[in-house]
């Protein structure tokens, strides 16, 4: 028990944990959840264990890697970690394979031949740094600092933004936020609650209203709490989704909605709740900028009948669910990309959040909680922030380049793959290929992505298990921090980006006269992390503990059966209603409800019976690009046929497995139809993450293929060479998805695209994609006129 620093931590920090007495819950443990690992046959010694934090998605689950003979052979969740509770999802579990990926880039590569031809030459780090530094310096001197661009996609930037601040360039393209990830939700939360994240307390709730979030596939730390709630609390789960995601499929009720109409459904529900006197008026009056009467008046125009017309959800169902939700205490709401990824996504998110607010389910046990986490501090001294004024949107960037709005000299790309993951990705590729528009592209990456193919120089980065890192994410009721200590030697000549940037800075500012070098005074990535930890409020003394235990604080032991954290024989609970002490993080200290609003996308309002909304979604077994070449994940998920409602297909005469054309305003793709009872009749669904043209044998399902670049110590994996059995590697929908920006938040309206479907023509083959970039431009122009 001396291990647990909950009490010690309570002294240090404001976020307290209370042990509630709840006798009889603790059972004797028979077997341990993990924390040790052995070889399946040679079980003599436990493997070498190192803390590991998974960076495959923004939840940053804490775990361990286990190495034997200098190679990591296993990764798993840390059983003492309060959020992951010993669990990793499939992506996290497989992530360590990235290190031994036989198609990995292990030396700096310089393009020979034309861009995109796939001819590379190995160069030394010295040459590479000298060349990049020279380019940056020339750009700064000749075309101004802002001509150095960074396309940044990582959840953790690895120093790239610091580098931009160091050289004083404002040209940072945030490819995730606020562009192509769930920015509308972030924007709504920031305005209303003053936070960028919330935590639905699924473990303790009795009722969950889920709008367009695929918790069971995309939010695994939340999913495990959801299943506990389902069995222990018998909670009711109602999911609004346009298709049967795993979450919808396991919900008590799946309610298919017409795309983009969640907002009006939520508003109608709020209206019903107010009308029936089920709202927590005390809470509204005390803690929001609205009085309950005023809010009721504002909401009264959103009737269930109106919502039914827009969403197809029956008014009676809206009424029933609203009342159920309001009467069940506690209850919570969760919403994600299904709501965000539309024109007006921010209103939709605000409407969903409103349901939690008016029922008083904010930061209470089983409700919609504020985030609890540590804000990892930046290293000191720190360069002045260049400001967000010129923050570029990822999805408009290539158009603007083409329009001459950006004079790019150097483009850095870090942990982002716009040539595949962005809307109008064909335009991205066109622009990146054009040496006139983008004269010099540097990509930091361990893997050859569709974007890397178009780079001029590739600087090999380390992969997750080789990287020193620290992170914290609000995925539990108590704050935690977790750390990666590399379990193995870095393979080949790969190098942490932070060190690469340091070397570039040192080359530009060799004598420190330009005042840049001082911001890069750390000695190694390890040192960087140490300084971060020691500078973070609440973590000052925790570096040693983090390094050995992988998580801080250690609140208690996690019972493998009940999954509760136990200390002194009692379950440890989180603290609720923190806002009562300090108010909300908004300007007024109150919840700043946005005026209830909902607008219909005009294109959807005028949709014809034979037009469909194309919906794209993530699956549990892949990320967009990070996981592409991991064999165990690709084996689980490698093909993405087009979901189409069975009734609809029958009407159109489309058979299961038949080749079809999906035609958008800019072109078409040829894929296979997958007939299902699990999708709205006017929606077509297609998953992302597959349909690669890069990354290697596994991602491209071609065991015969060999990487086109010279590899240091290229290794063959007999398993991949002989046993890789699938040949269908899917199709990428992003070429036919035009840009569509929600003006209020900047988010791409991924799930708004209107398409038609037709049987494939005689000479169509599976995977054919034909788009007209000129049409992409026309749409972009029209949209900017509107926006």
């Amino acid at each position, binding site marked *: 028990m001396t291990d647990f620093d909950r009490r010690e931590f309570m002294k240090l920090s404001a976020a307290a944990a209370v042990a509630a007495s709840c006798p009889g819950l603790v059972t004797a443990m028979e077997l341990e959840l993990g924390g040790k690992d052995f070889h*399946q046959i040679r*079980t003599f010694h436990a493997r070498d264990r190192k803390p590991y934090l998974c960076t495959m998605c923004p939840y940053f689950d804490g775990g361990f890697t286990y190495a034997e003979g200098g190679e990591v052979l296993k990764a798993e969740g840390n059983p003492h970690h309060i959020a992951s509770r010993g669990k990793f999802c499939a992506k996290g579990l497989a992530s360590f394979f990235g290190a031994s990926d036989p198609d990995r880039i292990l030396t700096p590569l310089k393009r020979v031949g034309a861009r995109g031809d796939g001819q590379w030459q190995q160069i030394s780090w010295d040459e590479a740094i000298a060349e990049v530094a020279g380019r940056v310096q020339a750009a700064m001197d000749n075309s101004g600092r802002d001509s150095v661009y960074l396309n940044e996609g990582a959840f953790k930037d690895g120093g790239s933004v610091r580098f931009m601040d160091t050289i004083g360039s404002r040209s940072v393209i945030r490819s995730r936020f606020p562009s192509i990830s769930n920015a509308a939700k972030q924007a709504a939360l920031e305005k209303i609650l003053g936070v960028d994240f919330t935590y639905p307390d699924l473990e303790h709730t009795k009722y969950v209203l889920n709008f367009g979030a695929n918790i069971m596939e995309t939010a695994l730390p939340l999913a495990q709490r959801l*299943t506990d709630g389902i069995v222990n609390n018998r909670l009711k789960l109602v999911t609004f989704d346009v298709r049967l995601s795993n979450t919808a499929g396991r919900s008590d009720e799946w309610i298919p909605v017409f795309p983009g109409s969640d907002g009006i459904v939520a508003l109608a529900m709020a209206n019903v709740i107010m009308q029936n006197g089920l709202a927590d008026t005390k809470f509204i009056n005390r803690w929001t900028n609205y009085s309950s009467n005023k809010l009721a008046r504002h909401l009264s125009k959103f009737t269930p009948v109106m919502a039914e017309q827009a969403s197809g959800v029956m008014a009676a169902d809206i009424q029933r669910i609203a009342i159920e939700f309001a009467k069940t205490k506690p209850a919570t709401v969760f919403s994600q990309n299904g709501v965000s990824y539309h024109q007006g996504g921010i209103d939709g998110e605000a409407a969903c959040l409103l349901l939690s607010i008016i029922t008083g389910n904010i930061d209470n046990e089983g409700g919609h909680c504020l985030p609890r986490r540590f804000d990892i501090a930046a290293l000191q001294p720190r360069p002045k922030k260049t400001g967000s004024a010129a923050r570029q949107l990822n999805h408009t960037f290539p158009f603007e380049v083409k329009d001459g709005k950006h004079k790019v000299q150097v483009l850095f790309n870090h942990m982002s793959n716009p040539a595949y993951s962005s809307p109008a990705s064909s335009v991205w590729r066109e622009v990146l290929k054009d040496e006139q528009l983008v004269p010099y592209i540097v990509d930091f990456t361990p893997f050859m992505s569709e974007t890397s193919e178009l780079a001029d120089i590739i600087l090999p980065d380390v992969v997750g298990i080789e990287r020193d890192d620290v992170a914290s994410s609000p995925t539990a009721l108590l704050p935690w921090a977790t750390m990666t200590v590399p379990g193995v030697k870095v393979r080949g000549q790969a190098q942490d980006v932070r060190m690469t940037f340091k070397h570039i800075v040192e080359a530009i500012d060799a004598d420190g006269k330009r005042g840049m070098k001082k911001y890069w005074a750390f000695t190694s990535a390890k040192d960087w992390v140490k300084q971060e930890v020691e500078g973070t409020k609440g973590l000052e003394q925790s570096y040693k503990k983090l390094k050995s235990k992988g998580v801080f604080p250690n609140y208690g032991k996690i019972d493998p059966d009940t999954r509760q954290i136990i200390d002194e024989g009692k379950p440890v609970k989180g603290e609720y209603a923190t806002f009562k002490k300090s108010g909300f993080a908004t300007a007024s200290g109150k919840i700043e409800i946005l005026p209830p609003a909902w607008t219909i996308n005009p294109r959807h309002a005028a949709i014809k019976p034979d037009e469909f909304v194309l919906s794209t979604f993530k699956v549990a077994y892949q990320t967009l690009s990070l996981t592409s070449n991991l064999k165990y994940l690709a084996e689980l998920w490698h093909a993405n046929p087009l979901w189409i409602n069975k009734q609809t297909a029958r009407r159109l005469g489309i058979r299961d497995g038949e080749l079809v054309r999906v035609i958008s305003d800019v072109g078409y793709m040829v894929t296979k139809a997958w007939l299902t009872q699990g999708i709205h009749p006017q929606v077509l669904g297609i998953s992302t993450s597959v349909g690669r043209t890069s990354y290697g044998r596994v991602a491209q399902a071609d065991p015969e293929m060999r990487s086109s670049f010279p590899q240091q110590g290229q290794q063959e994996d007999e398993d991949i060479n002989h046993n890789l059995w699938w040949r269908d590697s899917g199709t990428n929908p992003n070429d036919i998805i035009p840009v569509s920006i929600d003006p209020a938040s900047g988010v791409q309206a991924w799930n708004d695209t209107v398409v038609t479907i037709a049987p494939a023509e005689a000479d169509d083959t599976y995977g054919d994609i034909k788009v007209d970039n000129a049409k992409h431009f026309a749409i972009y122009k029209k949209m900017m006129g509107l926006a």
Partner: protein
Amino acid sequence: MTESRNDEESTAKKHHNYGIQTPGTKGIAGTKRYAMAIDLRKCIGCMSCVVACKSEFGTPLGVWRTWVKVADKGHYPNTQRVFMPRLCNHCDYPICVRNCPTQATFKHKDGFVLQRYNRCIGCRTCVVACPYNARHLVPAKRTDKNLPHSVVDKCTFCIHRVKRGMLPACVQACVGGARIFGDLNDPDSEVAKLVSKEPVTVLKPELGTSPSVFYIGGDWEIMDEPHSYENRTSQLKEEFNDFKRNHEGDAFGDIVEGESTMYHVSKNMKDFIASIPHKASDVIDAFKRLLFK
């Protein structure tokens, strides 16, 4: 190599205490009977179990110790999804054990049904015999060449972990908390409580194998064998054929739907002949070991 094989054997003897067909020990006080309960209400189809198991054992592509079946049920909009994790049932009356001609597979007194790789000749009788498809021949080619190959393998209930006081890898990883593992004969264990409290089903009870894997909230249709064959999406049918065409098994009898059986019969024979060289090298290896070690 010979040395480590002997080691393996003696470790097996010492730890596993094998009797070939140990009688079932369910409910016998003072004995252990490890079992798994799979609470399908909690299974979210994340397949963490599959990946955890595969990386625990470096299982090659195309073979699985555990997997999760998925089915969609009902008509729009009343559609639901069901998941069905599968693994070896560690039967109390294991048909695989009875069928094995060399005693390579055996029932451990604590409930595990295990393989002795050094005895297995790769005849696959047990694979044919197992009603649950729980077994597979490990392909000759795999990433780590020091691990067993060309012998039959299956889920071991992670005995190498359990005997060291840890839960099996799939249970450890199970995000939903759907897999519960423990000693069925210990009334205080979670698994015993669940099995006695909740209505449980096992797969193919009519065969009398007495499985040690219990399902809570099982769905008969996904548990039914012919149903799985009959009602598949055409995507799955295609993948099935891809698998049969491209996964290198040694002379397996794989038939691709929609192509002539006889064509595949001859192709199987071709594969069989093609497998001769690597097996010959195995033979040579064996002699070398005999002579030089």
